[in-house]
């Protein structure tokens, strides 16, 4: 399968610390990719690099088979929805569609008009007076109207109420089912990501900690509980992501592609949320809630 985003040693520095460092990724086409991580982890930086809005400090990034920042032909195949779904407050809903039609060579006017009708938006209404949910839906309409091969969404639902959030994701999933569309979206809401994403990237402290198909990630992460044990004595191939110890017991979240055979361990499955939290905790380092897995770095 071809990659929609391919990065090698990608890094971005604004001033002192790296916003994104040593990022090597290959995001396959045909997926809905969730990008998750704490605030300031570098999620927006990665998405802005992919959209061609930022230039890398180090390394390379290819989007849809060509370098980003992209040429007009490539930009036409890329939809980007920035944080907080910016629209032009003084322009009406109809003006936005007109703008979309003028600026995008592959614009699908009937798709855009159908969506506006379906959403029950008044074409004459100024975008500045729309609700948060309506504004997000208008922005999504513009992004889908250009018929992109790749749609990038930066925290699309963060500021929406639960109902507007669900409606936005419903429409997004409908578009994915109907169009040949790859999606990359960032979010804090792991419950949402669990429904819509089939590929996950965990970005913490400007580094990619883990990336892969959700199913594969869930199948290779396990929670081990058993008598207290030094994580350093685990077999090769069992990578400790996080762990905690009492005087008699150890609880470890490990990543391994082979089954855990040691009968001393009770092995249980891990949910997506616990897995993501373990990576965040690991990256937070000894300063915050010390965990025994810290000496094992996932990506050097």
């Amino acid at each position, binding site marked *: 399968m071809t990659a929609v985003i391919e990065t090698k040693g990608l890094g971005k520095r604004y001033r002192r610390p790296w916003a994104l460092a040593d990022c090597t990724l290959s995001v396959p086409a045909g997926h809905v990719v969730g990008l998750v991580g704490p605030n300031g982890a570098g999620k927006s930086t990665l998405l802005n690099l992919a959209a061609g809005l930022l230039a890398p400090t180090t390394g390379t990034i290819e989007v849809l088979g060509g370098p980003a920042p992209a040429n007009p032909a490539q930009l036409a195949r890329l939809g980007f929805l920035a944080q907080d779904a910016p629209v032009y407050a003084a322009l009406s809903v109809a003006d936005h569609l007109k703008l979309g039609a003028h600026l995008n060579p592959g614009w699908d006017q009937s798709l855009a008009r159908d969506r506006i009708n379906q959403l029950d938006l008044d074409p004459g209404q100024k975008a500045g007076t729309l609700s948060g949910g309506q504004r997000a839906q208008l922005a999504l309409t513009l992004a889908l109207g250009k018929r992109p091969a790749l749609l990038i969404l930066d925290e699309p639902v963060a500021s929406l109420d639960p109902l507007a959030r669900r409606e936005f994701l419903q429409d*997004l999933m*409908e578009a*994915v*089912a109907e169009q040949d569309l790859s999606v990359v979206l960032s979010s804090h809401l792991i419950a949402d990501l669990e429904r*819509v994403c*089939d590929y996950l990237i965990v970005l913490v402290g400007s580094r990619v900690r883990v990336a892969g198909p959700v199913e594969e990630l869930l199948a290779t992460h396990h929670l081990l509980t058993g008598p207290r044990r030094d994580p350093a004595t685990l077999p090769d191939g069992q990578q400790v992501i996080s762990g905690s110890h009492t005087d008699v017991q150890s609880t470890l979240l490990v990543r391994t592609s082979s089954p855990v055979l040691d009968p001393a361990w009770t092995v249980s499955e891990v949910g997506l949320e616990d897995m993501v939290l373990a990576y965040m905790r690991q990256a937070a380092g000894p300063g915050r809630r010390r965990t025994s897995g810290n000496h094992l770095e996932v990506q050097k």
Partner: protein
Amino acid sequence: MIEFHLDGRSGVAPYMQLIHQVRQALRLGLLCEGDQLPKVKDVAAGLAINPNTVLKAYRELEYEGLAGARPGIGTFVTGTLGGTSLAAHGPLRRDLQRWLAKARHAGLDDESIEALFLNTFRSAAEEDIA
């Protein structure tokens, strides 16, 4: 046509939940051979879930011989579960209702009833094996 729902806290993978619901509907006679399953697009849009999740569930049902895809039209039920026993459901349900009434009368609460049923069910299954 049936409508799917998702329990986000069940811990069961979404595609498995869809499969369970189809199997359940087949057992209860809500779905019969030849019936159409909801379109992938409609399920994805209705539940806000990844279309690949729905496709995966449908592929699994095809593999089990319970459903078949007709390209361009949709996925249809091709098998049955429970077979001819459906006719027996009515009388059995009435027996069970009578039994439930007796259990309540004897002072059992919902949890005790469930525990008693499951326990009896399991030990009966074990006797069958032995």
